[in-house]
């Protein structure tokens, strides 16, 4: 037992200011989440309800075990784009009949649940999570198909939707489709490719082509029921395995299907968990608005891990990166956390060694980002910072234990890569509202552009337009600042969601439990290199 001693003073002006700023950011986040929850807005929601249908999140709530937790993924997909926030689909991990499942549910109040480019990216991400973590997949289908004006962007890549379903099935991960309404054209392959399908009498419509298209194609006159009604599929075509009488009945049957999957988690069984000794509420006041002011990541670790118990590795070497072992909700975990932003050669080598140690004993890793990148400058280049950074990136890229990434502060430059950024396929990646991520800080980036422009002007012997330069710098700084904010990144699906710092332990615990559905992959084949 090595309990972290907290030096945080929750009455200090800095803490209080940080907390206030964080609460303001959380209020903004709530407002954006509310947009996603509103779906197509009150008019379409009312119309949907008037048809006796449940809203998408009501369907999910009914599907989940009562009072169990649910982690919604990518809720801000499409944020900042021309499309509705949320990508007209809801995805997430929840417990159904005692089994952790990945749920993908169309929101029919948003343009009839039609798929746009963000819908696709969000579902692809959900499929990846289901496959990597072996989570049974439940699709709650009600979609008008493709958003035709954007067909060029979605038609070709969209085939992956159906490919993923059958690959999940082939990997032994069951797929269940509950069809609530239209599931036509390409959408018909969701029930078509699922292992178990439930349709609702007089509600579900599943066909490749509706009556108008059939008439255009073959001249045949047909009605919807005969082409793709639930009863027809249950009794004639055999596409439906179960015929439900209404939505609650379909969900009831879906829950029974999951209850009979004979599902066993194949990963680690967690030990008993203890709550942290330090108050998670204080996570609101650790990270400031000015990311140039460093903070001690141990204060975060103390508020998220079991018993605030943390055994640090190499505490006296490369101390701008904290590494060590802890448990979270009973799961063993290795943690790498930036302490003073910059990664030097020592920190890089320490990280590479630590990652190898975790791989040797098959312990998952958590990366807590607050880095401005690898150190630059003559002395550091000559000391081999590229070589050492490459070691760290090599270790991260080829590590086979599950990785979790959490952006709490800055995540700039190659530091983002070394700390297992999105491109390094962490099983899950979340951000705090205080996080920022870009190739470099907005001020530095604008300054670099300015210096380059000034040098170019001087080389051409032209007078430098100081006024224009100031305007350019302000514009670029503004643009980069906006692009590096978590909502913009979340909108691009560069994370799996922005979380309230106080929920960190819950989110990570839920992810570790999901990860434990799958067996740990085989380790790579070298001994640990001492760095």
């Amino acid at each position: 037992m090595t309990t972290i001693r907290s030096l945080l003073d929750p009455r200090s002006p800095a803490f209080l200011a940080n907390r206030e700023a964080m609460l303001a950011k959380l209020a903004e986040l709530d407002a954006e989440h509310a947009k996603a929850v509103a779906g197509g807005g009150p008019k379409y929601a009312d119309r949907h309800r008037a048809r006796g249908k449940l809203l998408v999140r009501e369907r999910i709530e009914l599907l989940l075990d009562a009072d169990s937790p649910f982690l919604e993924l990518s809720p801000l997909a499409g944020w900042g784009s021309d499309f509705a926030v949320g990508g007209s689909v809801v995805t997430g991990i929840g417990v159904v009949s005692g089994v952790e499942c990945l749920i993908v549910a169309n929101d029919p109040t948003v343009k009839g649940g039609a798929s746009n480019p963000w819908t696709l990216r969000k579902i692809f991400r959900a499929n990846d999570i289901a496959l990597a973590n072996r989570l049974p997949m439940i699709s709650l289908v009600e979609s008008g198909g493709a958003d035709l004006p954007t067909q060029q962007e979605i038609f070709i890549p969209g085939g992956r939707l159906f490919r993923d379903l059958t690959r999940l099935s082939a990997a032994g991960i069951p797929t269940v489709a509950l069809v609530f309404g239209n599931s036509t054209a390409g959408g018909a392959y969701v029930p078509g490719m699922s292992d178990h399908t439930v349709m609702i009498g007089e509600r579900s419509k599943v066909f490749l082509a509706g009556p108008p298209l059939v008439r255009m194609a073959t001249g045949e006159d047909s009605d919807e029921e005969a082409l793709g009604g639930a009863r027809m599929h249950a009794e004639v075509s055999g596409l439906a395995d179960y015929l439900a009488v209404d939505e609650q009945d379909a969900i009831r049957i879906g829950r029974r299907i999951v209850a009979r999957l004979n599902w066993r988690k194949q990963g680690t069984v967690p030990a008993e968990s203890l709550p942290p000794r330090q108050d998670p509420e204080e996570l609101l006041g650790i990270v400031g608005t000015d990311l140039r002011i460093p903070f001690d990541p141990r204060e975060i670790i103390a508020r998220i891990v079991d018993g605030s118990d943390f055994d640090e590795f190499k505490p006296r070497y490369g101390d701008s990166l904290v590494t060590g072992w802890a448990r979270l909700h009973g799961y063993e975990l290795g943690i790498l956390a930036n302490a003073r932003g910059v990664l030097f050669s020592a920190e890089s080598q320490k990280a590479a060694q630590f990652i190898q140690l975790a791989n040797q004993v098959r312990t998952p890793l958590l990366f807590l980002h607050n880095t401005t990148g690898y150190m630059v400058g003559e002395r550091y280049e000559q000391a081999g910072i590229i070589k050492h950074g490459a070691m760290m990136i090599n270790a991260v890229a080829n590590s086979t234990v599950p990785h979790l990434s959490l952006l709490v502060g800055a995540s700039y430059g190659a530091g983002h890569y070394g700390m297992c950024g999105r491109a390094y396929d962490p099983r899950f990646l979340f951000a705090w509202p205080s996080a920022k991520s870009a190739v470099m800080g907005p001020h530095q980036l604008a300054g670099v552009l300015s210096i380059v422009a000034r040098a170019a002007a001087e080389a051409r012997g032209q007078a430098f337009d100081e006024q224009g330069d100031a305007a350019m710098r302000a514009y670029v700084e503004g643009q980069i600042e906006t692009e590096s904010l978590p909502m913009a990144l979340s909108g691009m699906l560069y994370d799996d969601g922005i979380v309230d710092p106080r929920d960190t332990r819950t989110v990570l615990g839920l992810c570790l439990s999901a990860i434990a559905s799958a067996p740990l992959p085989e380790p790579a084949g070298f001994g640990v290199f001492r760095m």
Partner: protein
Amino acid sequence: MIEISSVLIANRGEIARRVIVACRQLGLATVAVFGDPDAGSPHVAEADRAVRLPGRSAAETYLDQQAVLAAAAAAGADAVHPGYGFLSEDAGFARSVLKAGLTWIGPTPEAIELMGDKVSAKRLMAEAGVPVLAELDPADLAEAELPVLIKASAGGGGRGMRVVHALAELPAELDRARAEAERAFGDGRVFCERYLARGRHLEVQVLADAAGAVWILGERECSVQRRHQKVIEEAPSPLAEQLPELRSRLYEAAGTAARSIGYLGAGTVEFICDTEGNCYFLEMNTRLQVEHPVTEAVTGLDLVQAQLRIAMGRPLTGEPPRLTGHAVEARLYAEDPAAGWQPQTGILHALEFPDEHSTFAVSGLRVDSGVTAGSQVHPYADPMLAKVISHAPDRATAIRQLAGVLRRARVHGPVTNRDQLVRVLQDRAFLDGVADTALLAAAELAAPLVAGDLERRYAAAAALAAAASDRAAGTVLADLPSGWRNVPTTPQRRAVAGHGGRHEIAYWHRRAGIELVDGPEVVAAGPDEVVLSVAGVQSRLRVSRHGDRCWVDGPDGSAAFTLLPRFTDPAAAAPTGSLLAPLPGSVLRLAVAAGDRVRRGQPLLWIEAMKMEHPVAAAEDGVIGELPVGPGSQVAVGDLLAVIVPADGAGAAAEPA
């Protein structure tokens, strides 16, 4: 002196336990007998020895004289205590006991016989100068003599009694009363007398020894009755307190009654009185009474011990004890006052009274019970769960104490009359000592204590406790916060059904705890306890769950709920038009056959339970489609009795094409 060493108790339930305690205090061994449904009953476990009487019904078991006598012989008992009910007033049984060389703890068979026939007992008393209600001949009854009460000659306990308000009803009611008397007592004779709708029921406890000494141990008032059966009894009687001359006349009449038949042991002389001071002899019960504890409380005497001593030939010595204070007894029954006191059955999961009581203590708060947590309340016997008795220096205190104990009792299982008892104990007329036998006819007294907004609050506690216990039983993500959402959208919902109907409870799991969407502040919510706060005042509600049934106990009383499933399986729903058994029992007879056309309200069949006939009527017009039961079928609550295909419904047209 007659030596006794081992007493067979020819009874069950609380009276058997009561007699066991008295025997133990006198150093006597005890032998219990039991029918099969009572095999696990406390009286069987507590007696020194127990003998099984094979069978289920009373007739097969406790009423089988030969079996009881054989049990006494087998277990080496040398005396028999009959308790009350069953064989206690059967002179033939008393004779058989004596003939077998055993000691009979009760009056002589002759005294039992003289008082056993209500008609001849009344004649005997009238001759001795005790006022009686005239016996009326049903054959030439005049309209002016109505209403009348039909009673079974061999009766007792309210069975076979029927009130007739119109001459036209008389023949049918006589038939029913005869049939009921025949079933209950094996003797179908009935008689009529004037019915005092608003009478006061008073009775005098007597104790007589073999030497002819007769003690009058005060009176009891038992005016609070339902279906001619006592529910609340007290000593002394408020009416006698108001009319001292009535009391002396009652004592005198009781003494006369006891002496005139050479009475021996404990007995009770019952009267119906009015507020004018008139009193009429009803009957003499030649046995211990259910309500004997109130007399024990005010006299300090142990009447069962006294019975045993007298049976051993000991005389009554000294003076009769002085009466002190006031005692009230409430009978807790498994019955539903809102549904005509229909008997209820099932498992009794909990029967707990607040700490102040002491089991079978003669003074203070006392609980006499024949059942314990886990007991099965079955349809073969009296549905009384417990008698709760308070004793205090004055009547108001005794009543308040009793009401408080009952309100805070934890009674989990079948529906009981507990709330009605509390309401009676808080009723103005009762508190003023002017309540009469018609009191319980008031519908408001059948209303539950926990209703309306209060019930909704209790329902919320039931739902929140169920949420906590379900989560605690979960195996996945069990130690994560319940109902956690990163994007909160809709509240959790749970539905429960209570007395007042369906309650849907919506609540949010917030960071700070649970928040009811429309309800009081939730201070704490665990599987066993929920603390709610209304305007800063906290109430602690204890919750117990057994399957989908749930009981909530709090300071305002208790409420029971059914936790409703989130989903309904359409295949499990009963077909429309189904008639389901409202109570457990056996089908007595059918009035219809499959294919018969029936009208709404028409009785289709009768179920016998607790020796009562319960008609089951058609809920709508139609044709009998299915009729899966026949005479003698045993049915449980909710069993399908019949399916009525609506007269105009599509179902009726479902004929082969």
